[in-house]
């Protein structure tokens, strides 16, 4: 580390005010604070300082994603070798998945961070750490076979239109990772739905790689008659976006988020509850196979769990007040299931439900705060 410090110190005069590369200071600053504890001091007044800064918060989210990443990589390999009917083992799957996952991750980080650096330099503010998590989430919610240039385009769209136009990290209305996915979903639908993209190599040899949601949405088979059972969906031996398949891996991540205090347990629990109750309600109706799918299965399949744990808990785009968080979560669960069962063209209701509620989160907070003020006013009168 001493080596890095020396290098950084020796080039510092170039970047500080008056130096040759003064304009590039945000880039220098980003590297320095990434590698070392920032030595910045507050410039006005005194603030309460906490060791848990944005960088550490983000690190916890990345940490909680690790089970999903490892299982996702393993599942890429497993699904592929199953599709081509080749005998395989744990390590083989993992290595194959790693080489499929790495390009997605590399493109996501390279493109996203370039855009962030460009904006930071042109606006003269420091590079925010928000993209460290977004860049990790994006490849996890993509199908394994998405073309890399499409991924790059959607990352640019998400960072520029989803985040930078609103003022950068902390100011965005929508969750940037989901913005990227929604953009891809509407721009290149054939690469984001159907039965060809979820398993690497599917379609080449007539193997159907459709997801459980896709199969149910096509309304040809009920849950009981599918080739997958409860355990498959729970552990995650199913086709789907890279990180979303394993419920268990997601729950491990959720526990890390909750116990580190980074993710809100209110949002996570109320989202699951909202989805479960809504699905129960539709079980009574049951006019198509998605409606008659057991309520607990709805929580295991598709992106529901991943969205509930990692997307809806985004502290920037979600609700801020405690009561608001519960309403926000319940409504996400409700809309996710409603979109799923009513519109077979959008079987992944979770993405659209979270984006919708992201837009409404400030409104929910507004009324919660308003009600609180009114209550307290009553007390003084």
């Amino acid at each position, binding site marked *: 580390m001493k080596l890095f410090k020396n290098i950084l110190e020796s080039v510092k005069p170039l970047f500080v005010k008056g130096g040759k590369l003064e304009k590039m200071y945000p880039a220098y600053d980003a590297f320095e604070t990434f590698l070392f504890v920032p030595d910045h001091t507050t410039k006005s007044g005194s603030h309460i300082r906490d060791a848990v800064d944005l960088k550490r918060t983000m690190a916890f989210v990345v940490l909680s994603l690790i089970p999903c990443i490892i299982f996702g990589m393993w599942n890429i390999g497993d699904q592929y070798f199953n599709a081509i009917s080749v005998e395989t083992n744990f390590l083989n799957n993992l290595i194959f998945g790693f080489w499929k996952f790495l390009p997605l991750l590399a493109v996501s980080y390279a493109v996203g961070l370039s855009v962030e650096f460009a904006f930071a330099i042109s606006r003269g503010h420091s590079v925010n750490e928000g993209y460290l998590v977004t860049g990790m989430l994006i490849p996890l919610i993509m199908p394994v076979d998405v*073309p890399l*240039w*499409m991924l790059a*385009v959607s990352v640019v769209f998400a960072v520029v*239109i989803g985040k930078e*136009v609103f003022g950068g990290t902390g100011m965005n209305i929508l969750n940037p990772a989901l913005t990227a996915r929604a*953009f891809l979903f*509407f*721009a*290149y*639908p054939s*690469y984001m739905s159907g039965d060809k993209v979820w398993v690497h190599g599917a379609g080449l040899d007539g193997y159907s790689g459709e997801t459980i949601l896709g199969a149910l949405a096509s309304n040809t088979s009920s849950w009981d008659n599918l080739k997958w059972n409860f355990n498959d969906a729970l552990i995650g031996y199913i086709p789907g976006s890279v990180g979303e398949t394993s419920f268990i891996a997601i729950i491990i991540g959720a526990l890390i988020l909750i116990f580190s205090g980074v993710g809100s347990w209110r949002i996570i629990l109320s989202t699951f509850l909202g989805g479960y109750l809504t699905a129960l309600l539709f079980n009574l109706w049951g006019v198509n196979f998605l409606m008659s799918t057991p309520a607990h299965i709805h929580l295991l399949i598709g992106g529901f769990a991943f969205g509930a744990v990692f997307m809806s808990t985004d502290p920037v785009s979600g609700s801020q007040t405690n009561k608001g968080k519960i309403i926000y979560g319940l409504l996400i669960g409700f809309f996710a299931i409603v979109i799923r069962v009513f519109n077979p063209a959008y079987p992944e209701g979770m993405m659209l439900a979270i984006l919708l509620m992201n837009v409404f989160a400030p409104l929910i907070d507004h009324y919660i705060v308003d009600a609180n003020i009114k209550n307290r006013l009553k007390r003084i009168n």
Partner: protein
Amino acid sequence: MSKSKLLSKRTKQLLSDPLDDNNPITVQVLGICSALAITVQLKPAIVMALSVLVVLSVANVIISLMRKVIPSRIRIIVQLVVVATLVILVDQVLRAFVYDVSKELSVFVGLIITNCIIMGRLEAFGMANGPWDSFMDGLGNSFGYAWILIAVAFFRELLGSGTLFGYPVLESLGIYELGYENNGMMILPPMALITVGVIIWIQRVKNIKLVESK
């Protein structure tokens, strides 16, 4: 009228102001609905821009000529009658000569009547200025409307369908063989809104005086 009076500094400004500093779409944010609805392809966008140009400049002149005899209580109705008459004329001409485009524009030709830019200019300019200035104002605002429409339609048609005026530009360049795909989202209305937004963004970066002070 001498030539110097025809194109005095003031009339020049009437023409050039709406192109940038006082653009009807990007600065006044009027006429957004049509900018979202008919910009999927270039051809309907241009026909729409021309129709608005005819209606706005002629209506502005007519209202300007009548401005002293219109009772101010019923001026909106008089303006509406003038605009509606012109729109019907334009609609008939389109049907007679470019039937396919007219069908594509469908209800939006009739909706020129409700285009806020037209009523806005009649009310704000035609009612208070002479016919020549009003004509120039109508032209200027139509051009301001037109270039935004055409710019949005250019990007939406090129990226959404890979064509320009229906000609497969990207295919003839051989880009599809490299794995390129048309962007389906460009065809959807939200992308028109985002494209207009990006134009506004670029315009404000270049033209600092448009940025509101905090």
